[in-house]
């Protein structure tokens, strides 16, 4: 074999000739610097929305579930839609931190920290809905196998119970994963901040981390194992969420395509959310050197791929309903397209089938404004997807005589808006007090982090600190 190979040279992950010290300063000084005015305004708005959420949930508990727009047959409405939507958004964080880690995609280091934070806060928002949906929130602990004097245990054959375990495990593991990643960076902040109080708190949560390589050895192993555990976990969570529907026998729900279709949709909307948050925070905090346009383009490609998987699933749904020969399946699909919720179906088609196709164009993928626009439509589209699945399937079920049109009430609207308050309150606190980029991981990805970088023979052209290295294997193998 006398072929010569040349790998496509990747642009450097971090731009702007950074050293280890300047990376620390770039990220680690954010909590020390004066907080931008915009932060206070955003935090104020988020707090008001959070207050709104608390008020509406209190009203719900006081009055009962009747304040939501649920009816018979549509016993599930916005609450479950919002639950699935928020959980789905969370999935991108785990995908970035775990799956991309296992695939050695080093560009993830720029965004993994705040994508993971997003996961945690999104799952918190999601968890609220089913918890309040049970109607009697004060006995929510009945969903857990807690020994009690009534001798009562949960029904383990119910997918809804599987969901309780899936979502609570997901939340716990995401939190642990996030915290493990934070430990070295908290130590960086501990060694950097000037005020005694901050030093104490960062120090307490850094657990006395020194950067010992004896520790790094166990740490890297733990990180790898957590990534290996989180990868099947994230796939299982949305699979089990889809079981909430697909295990029942409602036409439009009872379908084996649901698990992969839900997971793809979750990643599509999750990446859309991460990219939107990234576009805003890189601008405000001046992190353009780390969260580069190249990384945005890579995320856009993932959005395009998963968006097309979702689009393919719609096609298959239509095909399978025809191919099944089952009149209720055919009927429900036809009702999606021309029935009472057809407007939702066509919004969905635009946002999830046509919208990701714009990402085929490099100009769009690399344009911040257009990316933001496409990502926003993706998030809207994925909300409508859950709306169509849940509401449209239930409201027009087996018997036309029992059909009813579902419409949400003002409580539904405002509760959904309120969850953004919960999400952004936590997210803004995170941006303010914690390192929003994984400092140690970004450093480990710099070319100078590799001991071989300092061997003179290996210093190829262009590797002057942040340049790219083109690997050229010998001509004859």
């Amino acid at each position, binding site marked *: 074999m006398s072929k010569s190979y040349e790998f496509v040279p990747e642009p450097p992950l971090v731009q702007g000739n950074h050293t280890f010290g300047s990376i620390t300063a770039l990220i680690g000084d954010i909590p020390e610097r004066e907080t931008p005015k915009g932060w206070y305004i955003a935090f104020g708005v988020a707090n008001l929305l959070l207050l709104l959420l608390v008020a509406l949930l209190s009203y719900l508990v006081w009055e009962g579930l009747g304040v939501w727009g649920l009816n018979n047959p549509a016993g599930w409405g916005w609450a479950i839609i919002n639950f699935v939507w928020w959980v789905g958004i969370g999935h991108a964080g785990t995908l970035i931190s775990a799956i991309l880690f296992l695939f050695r995609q080093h560009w993830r280091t720029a965004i993994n920290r705040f994508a993971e934070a997003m996961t945690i806060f999104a799952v918190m928002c999601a968890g609220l809905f089913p918890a309040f949906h049970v109607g009697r929130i004060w006995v929510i602990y009945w969903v857990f196998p807690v020994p009690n004097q009534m001798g009562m*245990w949960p*029904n383990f054959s119910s997918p809804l119970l*599987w969901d309780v375990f899936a979502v609570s495990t997901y939340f716990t593991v995401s939190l642990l994963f996030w915290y493990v990643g934070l430990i070295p960076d908290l130590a960086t902040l501990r060694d950097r901040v000037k005020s005694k109080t901050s030093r104490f708190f960062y120090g307490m949560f850094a657990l006395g981390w020194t950067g010992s390589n004896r520790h790094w050895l166990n*740490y*890297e192993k733990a990180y790898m194992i957590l990534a290996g555990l989180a990868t*099947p976990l994230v796939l299982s969570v949305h699979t*089990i969420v889809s079981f909430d529907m697909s295990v029942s026998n409602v036409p439009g729900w009872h379908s084996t395509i649901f698990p992969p279709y839900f997971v793809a949709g979750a990643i599509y909307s999750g990446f859309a959310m991460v990219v939107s948050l990234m576009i805003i925070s890189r601008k405000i905090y001046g992190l353009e050197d780390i969260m580069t346009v190249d990384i945005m383009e890579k995320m856009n490609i993932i959005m395009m791929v998963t968006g097309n998987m979702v689009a393919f699933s719609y096609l298959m749904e239509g095909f399978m309903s025809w191919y099944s020969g089952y009149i209720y399946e055919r009927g429900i699909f036809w009702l999606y397209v021309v029935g009472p919720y057809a407007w939702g179906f066509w919004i969905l088609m635009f946002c999830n089938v046509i919208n990701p196709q714009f990402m085929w164009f490099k100009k769009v993928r690399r344009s911040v404004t257009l990316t933001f626009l496409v990502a926003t439509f993706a998030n809207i589209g994925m909300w409508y997807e859950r709306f169509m699945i849940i509401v449209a399937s239930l409201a027009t079920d087996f018997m036309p005589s029992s059909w009813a049109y579902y419409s949400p009430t003002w409580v539904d609207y405002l509760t959904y808006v309120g969850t953004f308050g919960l999400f952004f309150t936590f997210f803004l606190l995170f941006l303010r007090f914690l390192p929003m980029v994984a400092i140690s991981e970004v450093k480990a990805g710099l070319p100078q982090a590799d001991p071989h970088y300092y061997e003179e023979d290996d210093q190829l052209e262009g590797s002057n600190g942040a340049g790219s290295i083109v690997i050229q294997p010998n001509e004859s193998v």
Partner: protein
Amino acid sequence: METKENKQLHGILAEFQNPATLLHAAEAVNNAGYNKFDTFSPFPIHGIEKAMGLKKSKLGWIVLGFGLVGLIGAVWLMVWVMSSAMPLSISGKPLIDPPIYVPIAFELTVLLSSFGAVFGMLFLNGLPKPYNPLFNSENFNKASDDGFFLYIESEDALFSEYKTTELLKDAEAVNLEKIYD
């Protein structure tokens, strides 16, 4: 620094220019036969565990143990509840039915394994450890920023103030500091 006199020498801290010199120094110190030494860097350095002569992490075994507890515990709980504690026939589903146990058994295995990974890692590293004599060194703050350090404890059998210092100097240490405790 007035407290130096009533404190004991705990070890010598050497600073190095970059990951490569630290790696070579670790190799030299390990080859010289030292056991109680450690290297510090703001990120894990590839290949340093070999240079330091470290064994593979035992964490995997801890995680396996936790994972098995999760798996067996979950299956036991579900079988016990469904068959004897509260047998409920719902929509004619069989009470003992392996497929319905899969999701929860999986989730609890992952949950317990993650606990094993995180708390096992902290246990193996001896964390949390709020006090460390190294924190007395002002310069050591750089270990979490851009500093590369090697520390030899005075408790090491081979430790002698003069010889150890010479060894570190030969290994291109840029800064040497005595740590008292």
